[in-house]
Structure formats: C-alpha cells, structure tokens
C-alpha cells in the first residue's frame, strides 16, 4: 500500500506556501498532520502530483486571545488543543472535543487546520467550529479572508476553499461567565470516527439558559446546527427543560447516510442520545461556574 510518486515542497512561510498553491492549483495538496491525507495516498485513492508540506511554517502555529476572540493557528496539533491552557479558558469546547479525536498517536500529529480542511462529516472539530460560529481564516496569494464556519463546510469532504487557499487559523468567539461546554459521541470502538455526536455550549443566568449552541456531527454531509433545539433551550429553566424530547425533535428532520457501521435511523437514535448527554454535561458544568453577572 504505497503512495504514487509526487513532488515534494516544504515552504518555510505562509507566503511561500500560498505562492506554491497559486502556481500548482489542483495538482497540489497541503500536507499538515497527514493522519487523513497519507492513508488516502497510500491507498492511491488520491494521487496529488505535488505535496506542499506546511509543517515547518511557524506562522501557522500559535494561540492568542484578543478581546472576545481566540485565534488558534491552523498548525495547532490536536494534542495542544487538549492541553493548552489558553484554549481551555477561552474555548473549552475545543478542549472537550480533542480527546475524542482518534488516539493519542494521531493527536500528536493531526492539526486543527487539517481537520477543518478535510471536512469529514464524522469529525468533531468542524462541528465545534459551526456550533461556536467560528470564523475560518484562509489565505491565498490574492489575500486573506474569513469564512464563517456555517458556510465553510459545503459537503462531505468538501469545503469552500479554493484550490489556491490555505487555512491559516480559526477565530472563535469567547463566551462569558456562566458557560458550560460538552461533547458526547458514539463510536463503534474507542477512538473511532463518530457514528453520531454532539458538541454543545450553554450559558446560564439566574437558573435560566440564556444561550445555547448545539452542533452535530455524523448526522449529515456537513455539521448540523440544531437551531430549533437551541431556540427551545434559550429562555428555558435549567430544572424544567426536557432534554430527551428536545433531542428527539432535533434529529427528527435529519437524514444521515447509512453505511456499514450504522443505518441513518440508528444514527438519528444515537444522535438524540448524544445531544441529551452533551447538554446534560454542559448544563452541569455551567451550573458549577459563576453565573453571568453574579
């Protein structure tokens, strides 16, 4: 299972990287963590003629916070998402999601940018980005733009990226006090791709839910934002909200694909259960923190 031959490029800067992408276009694939791309190449399901290895582009690293936004560099490894204190403080949903990604050996190499660009419908990080209304910063030789997560994921394994564009960072709005976040996912085995999963955030004030975000993965070709569920949660009292019912309603209109690991109907069933679990955990966490204004 050996990859087909390719030309290898290892730019040291973003400018050099996007310059290469401008020149090579469709013939090039960006190599970051390689945990998704290299198996595809080994199986010869993908045979890019050029590989642009961005692992030495230092500009793609780094986590910073300014005012209400956390900027996470595209080359941030999943391992760092698990451990970084700045991320844990400002965007805990990223921290909660990371341990579900594969196994620790995969997380040592896999990157945030790579995961977003790969757009696997069963992946956690795209759903987190969508749930948090994050912005995906991309650059090309033509300039920089920010794509809202809700528009970035176009279909299974397809994004709004042009062939000459490189994901450079994720911008995540920071939630205020009284927030709680959780991810719940059902997989066949420890570390497998999710059959269904939910990435949720809630914010409480005075025992009422003031804000809710529910992002689903494995439930469609792209991450699903369960807006009806969010609306049902917003304004509800923590003690009175019917999570199970709300979860069932959230999945009812969805048509996840069937495959050998699970039917669409099963994914809906599992998805509902994951929504309940994740919201339950997020609410518990929110109740443990200081409430907004308290």
């Amino acid at each position, binding site marked *: *299972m*050996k*990859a*087909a*031959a*390719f*030309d*290898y490029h*290892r730019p040291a800067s973003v400018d050099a990287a996007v310059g290469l992408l401008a020149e090579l276009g469709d013939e090039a694939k960006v*190599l970051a963590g*390689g*945990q998704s791309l*290299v*198996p595809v*190449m*080994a*199986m010869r399901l993908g045979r890019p003629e050029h*590989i642009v*290895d961005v*692992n030495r582009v230092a500009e793609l690293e780094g986590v910073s916070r300014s005012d209400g936004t956390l900027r996470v560099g595209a080359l941030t490894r999943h*391992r760092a998402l698990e451990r970084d204190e700045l991320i844990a403080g400002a965007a805990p949903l990223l921290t909660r999601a990371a341990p579900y990604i*594969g*196994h*620790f*050996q*995969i997380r*040592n*190499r896999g990157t945030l940018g790579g995961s977003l660009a790969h757009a696997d419908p069963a992946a956690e990080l795209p759903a987190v980005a969508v749930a948090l209304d994050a912005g995906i910063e991309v650059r090309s030789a033509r300039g920089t733009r920010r794509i809202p997560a809700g528009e970035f994921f176009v279909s299974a394994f397809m994004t709004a990226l042009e062939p000459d564009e490189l994901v450079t960072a994720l911008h995540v709005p920071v939630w205020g006090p009284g927030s709680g976040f959780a991810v719940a996912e059902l997989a066949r*085995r*420890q*570390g497998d791709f999710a059959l269904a999963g939910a990435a949720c955030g809630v914010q409480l004030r005075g025992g009422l839910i003031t804000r809710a975000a529910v992002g689903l993965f494995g439930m469609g070709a792209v991450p699903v934002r369960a807006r009806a569920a969010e609306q049902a949660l917003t304004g509800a009292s923590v003690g009175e909200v019917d999570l199970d019912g709300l979860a069932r309603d959230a999945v009812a209109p969805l048509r996840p694909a069937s495959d050998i690991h699970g039917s669409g109907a099963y994914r809906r069933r599992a998805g509902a259960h994951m929504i309940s679990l994740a919201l339950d955990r997020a609410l518990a966490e929110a109740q443990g923190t200081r409430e907004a204004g308290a």
Partner: protein
Amino acid sequence: MTELDVSLTVNGQRRLARVEPRKTLADLLRQDLGLTGTHLGCEHGVCGSCTVLVDGLAVRSCLMFGVQADGSEVTTVEGLAGDEPGSLGPLQRAFWETHGLQCGFCTPGFVVSVTAFLEECPDPDDEQIREALSGNLCRCTGYQGIIRGVRLAARLRREEQEARA
C-alpha cells in the same frame, strides 16, 4: 524519480538516507537504515505496529513521509533497550514478566506507544491504560498480558524513580 537527502538522528545516532518523497518514515527506517523492529501491519494508520517516537512523541511512522523527519530525533523499539548491550528496558522487562506478547509482531508498536504514554501519565488507572492502548492492535494476546504489563511497568517506573530520589 527524484530523491531527497534526509538527515536525522535515530536512537541517538546521526543517520543519512536518500529517498523518494513518497517513501514512508516506516520504510526509510526498515529499508534504508536496516531497523526492522518497526513493523507494517496495515500502512493506513490504524494498527499501530509502526509506532515510533519522533521528537519524543509517539507517531505512526506509516503516516509520515521519511523526508518529513529531516532534522528530527527518532526513537525506534531498538532504541528502548536497557543500558547494557543485550539488556531490556523496564517496560520491556515488564512485558516479559506478564506474557505481554505471543507472536511479537505488534509488540514494538506497543512498547513505543506505552513508553510515551507512561512518560506523560506515570500513574494511570485501568481506564486510562485501556484508552491509551486502544491505538494499537494485537491479535494474539487478547490484550490481557499487555494491560498487566503496563500496570507492572508503571509500578516499576515509580519504584525506580523513588529509589533514585
């Protein structure tokens, strides 16, 4: 067929290779450097038999191209032996004690992965051990001897560190 020079440190020794970009790190180690202890069980990043340490972190060497390891420090199973020639390191001794292997094919991958795991989590509970092991597949042992081996290795490491302290 362009080939590129790769200069890397493997098991503490500076090594050079000249490989096609598409050659995996696993194949570079096995074929160009003659370090056949790292095994290929799937070549698509699931079984973990190819696990090595790159700059101290456990990675699947079948999912890296050899050229990517230029300038890196790589540790393979051969580099985890004890200080004396022909001796085994503490984790290897633990697996020996607990029947942590039968055919031995997956074993180097486990030895490397667990070495990295215990560095970061020296006192794991059973759930943490199972989760950490879940990235390596074994077909012979049913994982029983391996799990016991990790428990023993953690204990031996702690005792060794306490003795040194």
